[in-house]
């Protein structure tokens, strides 16, 4: 699992790649919490994520809750394959805003 981030105008874009599972979820959570600390508009790009389990979802939820409780907004983009399916089954696709492309996500973040 790898995390990269960059600022596009006022929006922080976090790109994740690899697997979000029981071995990587904590690392994902702590890295993201550090990155989003002083940010209010965040896009998480999951294009390169090939696998997510409930442990990964817990990390995502924790980051989402933190951002919202700080008054910020967090959206996701570019989900594919089983990641998209897991988001849908778990209801994450309805509690978070999900966009097909990064451009759409940036406009809405």
């Amino acid at each position: 699992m790898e995390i990269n981030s960059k600022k596009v105008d006022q929006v922080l874009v976090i790109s994740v790649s690899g697997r979000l599972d029981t071995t990587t979820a904590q690392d994902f959570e702590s890295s993201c919490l550090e990155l989003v600390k002083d940010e209010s508009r965040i896009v998480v790009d999951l294009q390169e994520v090939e696998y997510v389990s409930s442990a990964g979802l817990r990390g995502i939820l924790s980051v989402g809750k933190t951002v919202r409780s700080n008054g910020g907004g967090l959206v996701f983009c570019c989900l594919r394959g089983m990641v998209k399916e897991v988001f849908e089954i778990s209801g994450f696709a309805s509690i978070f805003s999900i966009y097909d492309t990064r451009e759409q996500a940036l406009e809405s973040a």
Partner: protein
Amino acid sequence: MQMPARRESLHPIQEFVLKEASVRGMPGDVLQKIELVLEEVLLNIINYAYPETDSGEVQTGCREQDSGDFQIRIMDHGAPFDPLKRPDPDTGRPVQHREVGGLGIHLVKNMADRVEYTRQDGRNILDIVFNAVSSPGHKPAHKDASTSN
């Protein structure tokens, strides 16, 4: 395959089952579902089946049914626990009120085509079945693929 119910056992068991499923021609998207289901079910057992001892075991087997479906059986000797009886999480709650518990089993029930729990001879037995062709839109290479012995 019998392994100690510890985190180190997760990947070897996943590898073993995925190899068997792959040899039997399960498509890539189903292999990913199998991997996920194994992570969720095994972690449950590893984390909760043997709260009072550190030496419990988990037994995992798999086979291709006559129908071509792929069956995984996971057994442990822990206290009776039927994961299917756990209430589903409320997937419609907003972020701030969403709880994290119960998501794993919810994923298992939705990703697998059939899940069945049995308590027998002091064991929890979970049978998880994936249909030979499970995802909508996925077409088999041969519609009448033979399963002859």
